[in-house]
C-alpha cells in the first residue's frame, strides 16, 4: 500500500499529465492533489466524483459491473478517472500530447494501491 502522495507522484511523472488528485468519491472532496497552475482541483474533484458515481449507477442499471476506468476526452485534453478502494478515486487531467496508453496503465496500477 502506498500513500496518496506516492501515487500522485507516479502518475504525474507520465509525460503530458497536468495534474492528478485523489478524491473521496462520496463527498467529491480532494484528499490529495498534485496539480499544475491553472487546474482547478476542487472543481475537478467534485465533478469527476459525480461523473463516476453517475456512471456506476448507469452501469449497475444496465446489469454491468462498476466502471474500472473512465476516459473523458475533450478538445484540449482528457480527464482520466480510476476508482480505487475505500471510496477513493484517482483523477488525472492530461493534455492532448499525453501518452494515453502509459497514463492509463499507471492510473490503473496506482488506483489499485490506494487505500
Amino acid at each position, binding site marked *: 500500500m502506498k500513500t496518496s502522495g506516492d501515487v500522485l507522484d507516479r502518475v504525474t511523472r507520465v509525460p503530458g499529465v497536468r495534474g492528478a488528485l485523489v*478524491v*473521496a468519491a*462520496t*463527498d*467529491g*472532496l480532494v484528499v490529495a492533489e498534485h496539480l499544475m497552475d491553472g487546474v482547478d482541483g*476542487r*472543481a475537478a*474533484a*467534485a*465533478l469527476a*466524483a*459525480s461523473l463516476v*458515481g453517475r456512471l456506476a449507477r448507469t452501469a449497475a442499471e444496465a446489469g454491468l459491473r462498476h466502471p474500472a476506468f473512465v476516459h473523458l476526452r475533450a478538445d484540449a485534453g482528457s480527464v482520466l478517472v480510476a476508482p480505487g478502494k475505500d471510496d477513493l478515486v484517482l483523477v488525472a487531467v492530461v493534455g492532448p500530447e499525453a501518452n494515453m496508453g502509459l497514463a492509463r496503465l499507471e492510473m490503473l496500477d496506482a488506483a489499485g494501491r490506494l487505500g
Partner: protein
Amino acid sequence: MRALEPWVVEPLQTFLAESSARLTLLMTSSGQVVAQHGFSRSLDVMTAAALGAGIVASTEEIARLLGASRFGGVVHHGMHQSCMLSGFTTPRGRWIGLVVFGPETSVGIVQLFFDQMIEQLVSAAPREHVPAPMLAENFESELNASLKALFGR
C-alpha cells in the same frame, strides 16, 4: 423557487440546476428570508431561517474566540440527507445560505456551485439601493408581503 428580489433568481436557479439541492434558503444574517426553494410551508422556512442564522452566528463567535476570522461554512452529514450552512458577503450585507441535499449529489458539488452562485450574486446585486431599517409598525405588513412573495399566497 421564489425570491423577494428578481436579481437573485438567475444565480439561484443555476445553483439549483447544477447542484441538485433539495432545499435552499437564502437569508440575511438576521434570518430575514431573501429566497427559498423546496419549502412548502411558511412556518418551516421561517423556523429554518431563524435556526440557520443562529447557528452561523454561533460558529462565527466560536471562530472569533479561537482567533480565526470566520469559518467558511458548516456541513451536517446525515444518513439520508445533509445540510450545509455558509455565510457570505454581498453588496447588500452579510447573507447566509442553507442547503439541504441528498445522496444524489455530493458536498463537493454543492460547495463548488454554491461558491459560483455567490460570485454571481455579488456581481448581480444592485449597488444603488440599500434597504431601509424595518420599523416596528411596518413589521407585520412587511412580513406578510414577504411570505406572499415567497409562497405565492
